[in-house]
Structure formats: structure tokens, C-alpha cells
């Protein structure tokens, strides 16, 4: 673990995503379909920062994070743009040269997956997973490796004896915590988390979030995570990006996003949060998220937007810097949170 002073030294950009476009391209029984799951997204993440990506289901946020992780398989393909990491001077261009990502995996970049109770191989003992994932990348001898793993588990409040168990012998919450331990054992600079708390009950959720935040602060790593659950964003994100229909529509520090949302869609997401002592009924947004194979023209939100004007139907609003963040809306800032 790094000292606090060392952790604070970690500043500057660690992830740089530029004009990233990733489409599902399908050709099945003569039907050609192109789904623009990630459509021209640019963002960057600083060291020691927790960046949350929010959006409804099927908004393309999961595809975005998979593309960033370099974990896409056909039919999802990167059409344009780049994803570059800078791990303390180790530069990795994910879609530059093939295989450049492999050396960085787990050593610099790890992953917490959706449904992480099922990510451990059911027919191998837990310790084998640690060996497969971490041992190869840490460059330690076995004699050094196991004490490190045990120490790490203890720090996370886990009994090192679980290493001898098979996954099915452990509870769901325990497996979730083990996955976090597995993802952090190499002290990576960057952690990607895909819906880390979905499908967990509320108490375990709290527990897991606390654990992630705790580890991140101690190691000074950066985290990018996606979830549709705005309460999770409120709990741990430093900055939030809002994704709608494959595009980034707003981005900013979480305080600003929650207090003064600029985009009508963000405002809707915020207002749908229940608040203590508020008797008002939450209003649902009319319509469904658009079909990404055939999205509406121009601003993709306009069919559902309460503030839509004619311009929204003809011209796509660019993502422009505004005060502390960025927003893509012709009527940015005109919204009021109820």
C-alpha cells in the first residue's frame, strides 16, 4: 500500500478516451443491423478519481465500459477513436497495437464485473483464481506471493482461510468481497467496475461500496464505474458522466450534477430519486429509451424531452464546456429540479 502522501502525489490524467465509436455490426440471415452503442464519446479521468457513468439500461453504458476495458468481442467493434492509458509512465494504447493491453492487465488495470458472485471458476479453489489472475502479473516468488495475498485479505476483513474453499461453499456477499480483493490485490492504478452492486441486497451494497471506496483511497487508484443506480453515484463518485442513447450528454462534479443539473435528462434522473420527507409522487418520463439501431435524428432525447424545441429535431447539440462540466443541450441550464 502507498502512504497517503504518495497517494496524493498521483495526479494528472490516467485515462484518455477520444472520439470513441463502437458499433454492433450484425449480418444475420440477410438482415444488416448497425447498433451505435458507443457514439463519439470523449472523456478523461484523472489519477485518484472516481468517475461514475449513469444512464438507463440499454443506453450503451455497459458497452462503453467494455470498450474502455478492451474487452469487446464481435459483433461489437471499435469503428473509430482511441482509448489510452498512462499508468505512471507505462503507456497503453488499447486499440493501437494488438496485445499491448495484455501486459497491463491486473498489474495496472483490474476489473470488477457485473454479477461478480459468478466470476470465480466453480471447479477450482479460490486460491487458484488468485494464482491465475495475480501471480503471473506480480513478479513475486511463491514465498512472497502468498503472504501478500493473505495480508491483503485480512486488510479487507476477510479470513485468509477462504482461499482453500470452492466458490459454491461461500455466500454471495462473501464471493463479492473476494472479487474485490482479487481485483485489488495487485494494487492497480485503475479499476473498472461494471454495475458492481447490482443484484446485491441493500446491506451488502453498502458494505461493498464502503470496501471499494476504502481500497481506492488507500491505494490512490482511479475508478470508472457504471450503474443506473443514482444513489451509488451519490455515494462514491467524484465526477459523473450521463450517457443517453450511446452519447455522453452531460458531465460534471457529482455535487454540481446533483444540485444543478444542466441537461433535462440528468434532471429527470435526479428527480426520480426518492427523497426523505418528500411526499410528492415521482413523475415517470414519457416514452422508452430509443432503439439504438434506429435512433431519433439530431438530439436523441428530443422525443421525450419536456423542453424540446424545433432546433432539437434538426441539429445535434455538441458537448460544450460549461462552468464546471460539459453538457450537450440547446437549452442547457434551463431546467429546474422539482
Amino acid at each position, binding site marked *: 500500500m502507498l502512504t497517503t502522501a504518495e497517494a496524493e502525489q498521483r495526479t494528472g490524467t490516467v485515462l484518455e478516451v477520444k472520439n470513441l465509436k463502437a458499433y454492433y455490426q*450484425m*449480418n*444475420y*440471415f*440477410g438482415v444488416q443491423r448497425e447498433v451505435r452503442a458507443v457514439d463519439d464519446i470523449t472523456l478523461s479521468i484523472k489519477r485518484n478519481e472516481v468517475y461514475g457513468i449513469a444512464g438507463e439500461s440499454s443506453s450503451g453504458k455497459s458497452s462503453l465500459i467494455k470498450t474502455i476495458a478492451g474487452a469487446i*468481442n*464481435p*459483433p461489437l467493434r471499435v469503428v473509430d477513436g482511441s482509448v489510452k492509458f498512462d499508468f505512471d509512465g507505462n503507456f497503453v494504447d488499447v486499440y493501437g497495437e494488438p496485445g499491448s493491453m495484455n501486459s497491463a492487465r491486473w498489474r495496472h488495470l483490474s476489473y470488477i464485473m457485473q454479477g461478480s458472485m459468478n466470476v470465480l471458476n466453480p471447479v477450482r479453489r479460490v486460491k487458484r483464481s488468485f494464482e491465475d489472475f495475480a501471480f503471473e502479473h506480480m513478479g513475486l516468488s511463491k514465498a512472497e506471493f502468498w503472504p501478500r495475498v493473505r495480508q491483503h485479505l485480512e486488510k479487507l476483513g476477510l479470513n485468509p482461510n477462504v482461499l482453500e474453499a470452492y466458490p459454491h461453499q461461500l455466500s454471495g456477499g462473501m464471493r463479492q468481497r473476494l472479487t474485490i480483493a482479487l481485483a485489488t490485490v495487485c494494487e492497480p492504478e485503475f479499476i473498472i467496475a461494471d454495475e458492481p452492486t447490482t443484484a446485491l441486497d441493500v446491506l451488502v451494497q453498502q458494505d461493498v461500496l464502503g470496501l471499494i471506496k476504502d481500497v481506492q483511497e488507500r491505494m490512490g487508484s482511479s475508478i470508472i464505474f457504471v450503474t443506473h443506480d443514482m444513489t451509488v453515484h451519490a455515494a462514491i463518485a467524484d465526477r459523473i458522466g450521463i450517457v443517453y442513447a450511446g452519447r455522453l450528454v452531460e458531465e460534471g462534479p457529482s455535487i454540481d450534477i446533483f444540485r444543478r443539473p444542466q441537461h433535462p435528462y440528468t434532471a429527470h434522473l435526479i428527480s426520480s430519486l426518492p427523497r426523505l420527507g418528500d411526499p410528492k409522487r415521482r413523475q415517470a418520463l414519457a416514452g422508452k429509451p430509443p432503439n439504438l439501431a434506429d435512433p431519433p435524428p439530431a438530439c436523441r432525447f428530443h422525443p421525450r424531452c419536456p423542453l424540446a424545441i424545433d432546433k432539437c429535431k434538426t441539429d445535434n447539440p455538441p458537448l460544450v464546456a460549461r462552468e464546471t462540466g460539459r453538457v450537450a443541450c440547446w437549452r442547457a441550464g434551463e431546467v429546474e429540479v422539482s
Partner: protein
Amino acid sequence: MFKVLRDLLRYNREFLIGFILTASLVIYASLHFFSPYDNTAIYLLPPDMPPSPDYWLGTTSRGQDIFWQISAALWNTMTFGITVTVISRMLALTMGMISGYIGGRGDRVLMTINDTLIALPNLPILLLVYFVMREQMNWAILAVVTACLSWNYDARIIRSVALSLRQREFTRHAVYAGMSMPQVLVRQHMPYVMPIVFFTAMNNLIFAIGIEVTLAVLGFIDLNRPTIGGMINWANQHQAIVAGVWWWIAFPIIAIVLLFLGLFLLAISINEYIDPRSRLARMGG
């Protein structure tokens, strides 16, 4: 239905080849209605004639025209296969859907019996049936017995689908609306189960034809009724290979292998069309 067929023919090469093979063999088989010879009569023609313009595929040592023999044999073999398939699909469908629908303990009991029947070696049992029936064995009885020995595995597959349908909303609605179990099964569940029935039918057809060929080759069904296996049996009895009458054994083998290939290609391409997961994989490839 026609759209599905058209799509499959246009975009799935396996299906196209399978379809062409099977269709041409079906046409070839139905030609036997116009056969110039009685296909059960023997010593009509000069024996042991090699393939020639007069006898396209030659003649047997028993003075039969091989071209017309195979045509009739394919027809009989296919009739047998389809009979078995229809009977065994009815058994599998009934057992599978009922077991899945009632669920719980009843389902467990039925499936335990089902698994037991799967575990039995079916060929020795079939041979035992033949052995005790002897001359009274005809193709219809054989079809029923083969059907009885080949529905269990598919009943299991159908049952797993029925089990999931049971928990669906519309099943509950139908029950509340006063529909009886047979009504729910036939009207509500049947449409979901049919694609699987169709796919398993292809495999069952292949299995049934295999059984018929095998038993006929061994001489365990009426050998005067032309079948592919029966032809090979006669050829073996006459030592066709040693006597150099290779066409007697080669052409029936080619015909049956082509039939199996055609049916198999149809089976796998239909399966691929039905199974959403392999569809996804296909998009990736």
C-alpha cells in the same frame, strides 16, 4: 413458415445442401410408383449386369434392377422413419408437457422413470422383441417398438421448456380463466414447444432410419419388402463383393449415406435457426 424456409434457403448453405439432397432423394423415392418392374419380384432381368444404359445402376444376382430397387427401398425406409417419428413425438410431447406442467413431485417421479428408460440399452431390447416375435414381426410393429425406445431423451428436453412455461403469467391467466390442463397445454403451451419438437424430430428420423437399416442388414425384418438394409443383406448373402458385383452393395450405401447427410444437414441448420445462442455466435463468426 414460407418466409423462414426462404431465409434458410437463401442464407444458410448447410440448409440449402441438405434441402437439395433430401428433396432429390424424396423425388427419386417417389419415382418407384412408376417403376416398370414389380419391385418384389425376382429373376425378372438378366442377373449381375453392370451399370449400363439399359440398367443404370446394374442388376442384382437375383435379377432385379438396382435403380428401381433403391427407389422403392428409399420410399419404404422413409415411410418407416416418419412413422416412428410421428409416434415417438406424440409420446415425447405428451410425457414432456404433462411432466413439466404438473411439476413438483409428479414431475420427479415421471422424470426418474424417463431417465431409467434412457439408461436401458435399446438395441438388445429391440433384438429381444424381434427374437420372440420372429415371423410375426413386420415393419409396423418394429416402428411402434422403435418409437417406444426413442422418445425419452426428447421428452426431457420438452419437459424443461414446459417447466419454464408453467411459471409464465399467461399460464396462470389461462388457469384462472377456467381452462383445463389439456386446454392449457394444447392451446397455450403447444406453440412454444413445437420448434423443439420439430428439431428433435429430425434427429429421431435419423435414428429410426438407422435402426431400420441395421435390423434389415441383419435380416431381422421382412426381406422381400425392398429396403436399403435388405438390399445390403441380400448382397452379403450372395457374396456380392467376392463375386465382383460391387454395384449391388455400393449404390445402396451411397444412397443411404446421402440420405443421412441430407437429413443431418437439415437438422443442424434448423437447430441453429431455433437456438438464439448459436445465432449470436454466428453473428460473431
